[in-house]
């Protein structure tokens, strides 16, 4: 049993020897255009069946709604009016003034002369779209992996978290264990479209892996072949960046500093802090508003961090139960 919380190198913690550097994504939502190329590329590469009926949801230009068993990249669309934009800028500024920890290289502003730079915020638009491609966080301390009883979920040499399709028995514990609501048990009920025009839709190709837990593998198969994950490869704006985790965090920090220097204080990072409740995430995001606006939890905590204490409490309860039973019999005999 490795570490349950706090900063660590997950691959080393999982006792990989000589492992490659930890891999991860940096999703820069400030340049996402919501084209969903990542969703499509992911589906194609991973043979994921259709989710839903391709209708737009009744809220936004979103037709998948959330990450799930068959949707491993999900592009969130948020429409906001001016009031909300102002609020986002304020909450971002509050974050800056908190003096959040700056781990890693200092912001590039350090050796620049900023006196010339115009830091008045750009005009606040009266309307904006937020688009963000969400994905499994590949947590340093992954709730899903910790609670999986079969060992189907495992930590790869790249520090990512992957389900082994042939081991999982679909117990569903991981679904409740994930603080981000990512992993899901695949149910059938999706109608697969025939691959060929001539094929009848009435006999759709079977949905693979029904009944077992499914989520982003960070394209484990491609990583082994030294390839970029399908989504990052397909992203036309480089909103999804892929690389060594350290490098991703560095890039993210540089980018947020750049946006702050332009007065866009609403920019903030999500998952780049290894002191947070999940030990930092493998997928780092740059967001332009509070995380919950994108459907992300504002203060996730891996449940297993409290497990030793829970076992102790359960032990006390067991002792109490045995004592009660003993008392019932002892007094009964007297």
């Amino acid at each position: 049993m490795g570490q349950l919380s706090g900063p660590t190198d997950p691959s080393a913690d999982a006792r990989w020897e000589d492992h490659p550097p930890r891999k991860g994504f940096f999703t820069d939502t400030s340049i996402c255009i919501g084209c969903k190329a990542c969703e499509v590329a992911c589906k194609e590469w991973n043979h994921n069946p259709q989710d839903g009926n391709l209708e737009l949801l009744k809220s936004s230009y979103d037709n998948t709604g959330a990450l799930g068993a068959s949707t491993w990249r999900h592009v969130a669309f948020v429409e906001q009016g001016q009031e909300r934009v102002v609020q986002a800028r304020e909450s971002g500024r509050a974050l800056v003034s908190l003096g959040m920890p700056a781990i890693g290289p200092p912001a590039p502003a350090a050796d620049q002369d900023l006196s010339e730079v115009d830091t008045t915020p750009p005009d606040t638009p009266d309307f904006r779209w937020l688009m963000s491609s969400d994905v499994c966080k590949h947590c340093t301390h992954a709730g899903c992996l910790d609670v999986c009883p079969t060992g189907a979920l495992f930590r790869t040499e790249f520090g990512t978290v992957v389900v082994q399709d042939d081991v999982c028995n679909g117990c569903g514990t991981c679904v409740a264990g994930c603080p981000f609501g990512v992993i899901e048990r695949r149910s059938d009920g999706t109608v697969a479209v025939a691959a060929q025009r001539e094929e009848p839709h009435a006999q759709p190709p079977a949905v693979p892996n029904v009944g077992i837990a499914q989520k982003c593998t960070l394209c484990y198969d491609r990583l082994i072949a030294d390839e970029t994950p399908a989504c990052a490869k397909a992203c036309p704006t480089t909103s999804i960046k892929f690389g060594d985790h350290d490098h991703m965090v560095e890039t993210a920090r540089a980018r947020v500093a750049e946006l702050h220097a332009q007065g866009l204080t609403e920019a903030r990072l999500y998952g780049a802090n290894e002191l947070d409740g999940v030990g930092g995430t493998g997928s780092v995001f740059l967001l332009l508003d509070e995380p919950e606006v994108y459907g992300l939890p504002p203060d996730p905590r891996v449940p297993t961090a409290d497990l030793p204490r829970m076992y102790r409490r359960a032990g006390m309860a067991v002792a109490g139960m045995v004592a009660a039973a003993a008392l019932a019999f002892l007094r009964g005999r007297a």
Partner: protein
Amino acid sequence: MTHSEFDSFRPTEPARRRRTDRRGAGRRRDGGDGSREMPMVPEAEFTSYYGRPVVKPAPWGDDVAAYLFLGGVAGGSALLGLGGQLTGRPTLRRNARVTALAAVSLGAVALVRDLGRPERFLHMLRTFKLTSPMSVGSWILSAFSAGAGVAAVAEIDRMSSARLPLGPLRPVLQAVEGPAGVEAALFAGPLAAYTAVLLGDTATPTWNAAREELPFVFVSSAALASAGLAMITTPVREAGPARKLAAFGVMGEMVAMRVMEHRMDPVEAEPLHQGRAGAMLRWSERLAAAGGLGTLLGGRNRAVAAASGLALLAASALTRFGVFEAGLSSAKDPRYTIEPQKNRLAARRAAGITGDSITTAG
């Protein structure tokens, strides 16, 4: 939110939940005359991604809730069986052993049925993982079933006047039945309590928030249910300890439940009082109280004892189903995830702890 001429073609947006009600809803700040007053304190507003849940509920059906109940009954019964074995109460011993096996078998079937791939249920035992309460629980269940099975088969053999086709194994069975009863009792408490850890060790808001006291609620519920069952099956002469255990269980559950709700964040405790879950838990409390009173006042009357036992069983089942449902519904509403998390983050920041947020400025 937008002001475009095409807006009328859009489907209506689901109303976003705002928590402005307490401060006089309808007070609009954007009068449109440019003299908009900036609020000094931003209003507490609950935002989410179009009302969609943040965490996912476990894909567990009523089978799992039933297992929570049956596992408790089995565990408590094994303890009563051992008590009967050690204090010379053969009827109590026999009945408790048989009900332990029946409950644990039904429970195991329910668990397997609930798997996405039931044919792979044995994968549960391909490894032992301390970080997974489900794995630990599977081993507890297996170990318990072994002992409970042997003890109960010995009883069944006796009941049928040695008609089971055991052949030369009969003496072996008779020799190990005592130790088997002890072994089952050893795993009885853990069997009743681990399910609380299983629920507590999730990101499901209400279960996770209940993690400190849930084990106490569950073992109490197990005690009162198994005692109630013994009061139904066993004549009052031998059921004295069961009556006492029932009383302890009722007291324990009432106290543990109250402490639990008191210590939980009020938002996270809300699902325990609302909807179906709330109704079940209210009825569970009433039935437990009635069953407990019946046991204390009229437990020496066979009919009253049986009725009380039935009330206790029902109370325990309702407790398990209620807690189970409350958790699932807390996962389906983003409010229960987001609000408590925002509050605890704000509380830490107010206390000067600013280094552990997942959101950072750089």
